[in-house]
């Protein structure tokens, strides 16, 4: 391929004796997009920081990082400062914190430009407008005077990319550039990055955990696992024929749209949950606008939508935590705020760490519903908790541990065990796997599916991830700005959507298959996901 821009060889980083990166090698060529993928703790972000010399003082490093043949590792602060922003630029995960809220975007761009180049104020402003135009911000001459809060999330990330491009860097490091964004916005940002590479020939080092993003953007992929490079291959080879067991497991764990046979329709006449014309307002803002939703007994209904669509609010209304401003909520022919009805509802939270009291043992966390409703005491209580831990496949020995002594996936199992404690007829799960790594997510989803099949509870599964919903929902409701835009069997809504918004949503989800994903770019609509 072309000229080599970055060569990382034998890179090692450790924090106080604990190794985070244990000897990895890779190169990035000019105009090449190399993705570094891995789950949390794999050392991918530490690698990115080591390249820029941004590690904390407690870190010790070894090996070598060369930019155009110059050694960066161990270089002094002054020479690193000249490299940062000028030759290597960084795009951060969270656009709202990467921008300074008290300065206009034009001023922030000008500051970066003038830090490395000799420009007058006016020249810098013109250059800022040119950059905003380059990253596809409409009407850049006006927007240059905007403050970050006046821009949408996607526009903010475009500005962050413009900041990175300001001094024509040799290499752009993008650390999870689309993780904080909605899926439709993510698609736009990915298109922008691809376009910039084609037009400017910049080399991009993409740090991500999302296999769909990798399939969409990368030329070459390096898979990291626990600080080691497991596999490195061109993107098509990696997805088509992964050579290492870990890569195969990782790819198998990625949820895909349209990979599950259509679920049979549920015709049970009784409803576990029924919302009729529910309206929720926060002051003047209508979060939920006349929503009708039914979850039949034993049925899993996926509620999907982007941030701000009102999906979590509906979850709270269904659980009786929030009283709707209009309309009625019925759970098992009763009011969810009624204590007797509440016994039949289980709730699984998004944040498995925060939803467990740090001072209680796992046994007490799981058994809390039993104690609240005084259903079991003494040995019966302990036996029930042990059964529940067993049901979520946690060792009984964990009963005595505290939540912080468990990993994220294990904590979410504890959350599920607690939700099951009173044999609920309805489970409401609000983004239960969004905080988890993809392989952990796969096991938690499999567990939920098994439990649902065995215990037969109804489930309202709230998620922003269409592929996750498609792996376990019988029916899907798509929420947009507080209203249900489309509802139906999962295979129809998520594979052959009829509404324009659903279609846009489904098309925005990057398919974790480079061939299929890239066909979609060239033939926008015909390419229906492989079945």
């Amino acid at each position, binding site marked *: 391929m072309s000229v080599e821009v970055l060569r990382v060889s034998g890179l090692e980083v450790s924090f106080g004796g604990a190794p985070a990166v244990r000897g990895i090698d890779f190169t990035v060529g000019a105009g090449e997009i190399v993705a570094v993928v891995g789950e949390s703790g794999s050392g991918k972000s530490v690698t990115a920081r080591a390249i820029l010399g941004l590690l904390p003082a407690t870190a010790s490093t070894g090996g070598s990082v060369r930019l155009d043949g110059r050694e960066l590792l161990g270089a002094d602060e002054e020479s690193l400062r000249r490299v940062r922003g000028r030759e290597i630029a960084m795009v951060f995960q969270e656009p709202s914190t990467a921008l300074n809220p008290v300065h206009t975007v034009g001023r922030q761009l000008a500051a970066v430009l003038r830090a490395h180049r000799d420009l007058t104020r006016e020249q810098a402003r013109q250059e800022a407008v040119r950059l905003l135009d380059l990253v596809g911000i409409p009407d850049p001459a006006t927007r240059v005077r905007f403050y970050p809060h006046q821009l949408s999330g996607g526009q903010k990330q475009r500005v962050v990319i413009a900041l990175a491009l300001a001094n024509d860097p040799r290499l752009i490091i993008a650390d999870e550039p689309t993780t904080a964004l909605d899926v439709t916005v993510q698609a736009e940002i990915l298109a922008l990055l691809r376009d910039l590479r084609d037009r400017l020939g910049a080399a991009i080092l993409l740090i991500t955990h999302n296999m769909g993003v990798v399939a969409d953007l990368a030329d070459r992929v390096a898979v990291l696992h626990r600080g080691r490079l497991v596999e490195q291959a061109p993107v098509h080879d990696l997805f088509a024929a992964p050579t*290492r067991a870990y890569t195969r497991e990782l790819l198998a764990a990625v949820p895909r749209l349209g990979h599950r046979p259509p679920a049979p329709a549920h015709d049970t006449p009784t409803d576990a949950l029924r919302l009729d014309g529910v309206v929720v307002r926060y002051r003047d803002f209508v979060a939920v606008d006349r929503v009708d939703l039914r979850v039949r007994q034993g049925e899993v209904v996926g509620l999907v939508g982007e941030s701000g669509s009102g999906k979590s609010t509906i979850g709270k209304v269904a659980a009786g935590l929030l009283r709707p401003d209009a309309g009625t909520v019925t759970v098992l022919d009763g009011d969810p705020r009624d*204590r007797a009805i509440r016994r039949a509802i289980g709730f699984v939270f998004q944040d498995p760490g925060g939803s467990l009291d740090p001072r209680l043992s796992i046994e007490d966390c799981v058994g809390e519903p039993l104690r609240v409703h005084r259903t079991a005491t003494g040995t019966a209580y302990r036996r029930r908790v042990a059964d529940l831990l067993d049901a979520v496949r946690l060792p009984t020995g964990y009963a005595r541990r505290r939540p912080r002594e468990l990993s994220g996936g294990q904590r979410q199992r504890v959350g599920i065990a607690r939700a099951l404690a009173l044999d609920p007829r309805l489970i409401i799960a609000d983004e239960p796997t969004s905080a988890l790594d993809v392989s952990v997510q796969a096991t938690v989803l499999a567990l939920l599916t098994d439990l649902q099949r065995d215990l037969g509870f109804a489930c309202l599964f709230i998620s922003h991830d269409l592929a996750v919903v498609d792996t376990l929902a019988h029916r899907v409701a798509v929420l947009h700005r507080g209203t249900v835009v489309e509802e139906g069997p999962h295979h129809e809504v998520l594979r052959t959507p009829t509404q324009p918004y659903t279609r846009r949503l489904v098309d925005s989800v990057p398919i974790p298959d480079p061939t299929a994903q890239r066909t979609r770019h060239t033939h926008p609509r015909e390419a229906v996901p492989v079945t």
Partner: protein
Amino acid sequence: MTATLDSAEIPETPDAPEVAVPRRPGTFRRGKGLVGLVLVGLVVAAGLLGPLFVSWDPYQQIPGANLLGPSAAHPLGTDDLNRDILARLLSGIRVDLLISFVAVPVGALIGCAVGAMATVNNTLDIAVQRLFDVLLAFPQLILAIGLAAVLGPGTLSVMIVVVSVEIPIFGRLLRTAVLRVRESPFVTAAQVVGAGKGHVLRVHVLPNSLEPVLVQLALSMSVAVFIEGAMSVLGIGVSPPEPSLGAVLTTSLHYLDLNPLFALGPLAVTAVLVLGFQSIAQAANAARGT
């Protein structure tokens, strides 16, 4: 460009994908926490057991022993009224420990009770907050002088001053902690289950809110030692001839030129005690949220 890396070089690690976080060793069994406990423990032991090993009575006036320097009979010398300084110092520790370990917890208890009550009712909250504002607006020593003027000097006055200084501090602290904990997801989780207010308060809110209170307790105990010292210097502290750390130190200040080593004993004990409390507070604070 190298297409694929030679896969044979890298050993695969086939261990479980989920790793539990290992248990951390106890906060007070190492580092700062241990140092703090040892320092406070030393002073407490000296105060409780020390007087048994000293043959002099703290109030006994020894004929012909005026402002003597350290000797075998009087390790820290004697004071202006011919009394053994070591004996007075060791008994004085008891007074300070009494103030630290009784007055501070009493103040904390009242403050926490008032602070917890304030979170229940909005009107009550505003009333309590303004009351705390008034109490906090007085500098500690002005409050001490005012109270001593009403109550007269003495150990009880010192304790009342310490209690009234601590009430608003602990009240504020608990109130903020309760308001914060009440919003945490695990409280919502309990509410979803159908738990009542009492259960949520008893099981989740109070135990989690007490964490910062325990840190503040250690900090306040060191502050109590200072308040006692400052009141003694102003002459409104423990009434003579009763010894206390502050009382012994105050007397020593008048005779620095005649017996400079006089001040050494009370200063060292005060320093060790305060350092000990502060180390405990810092260690406890560092252990929070882990």
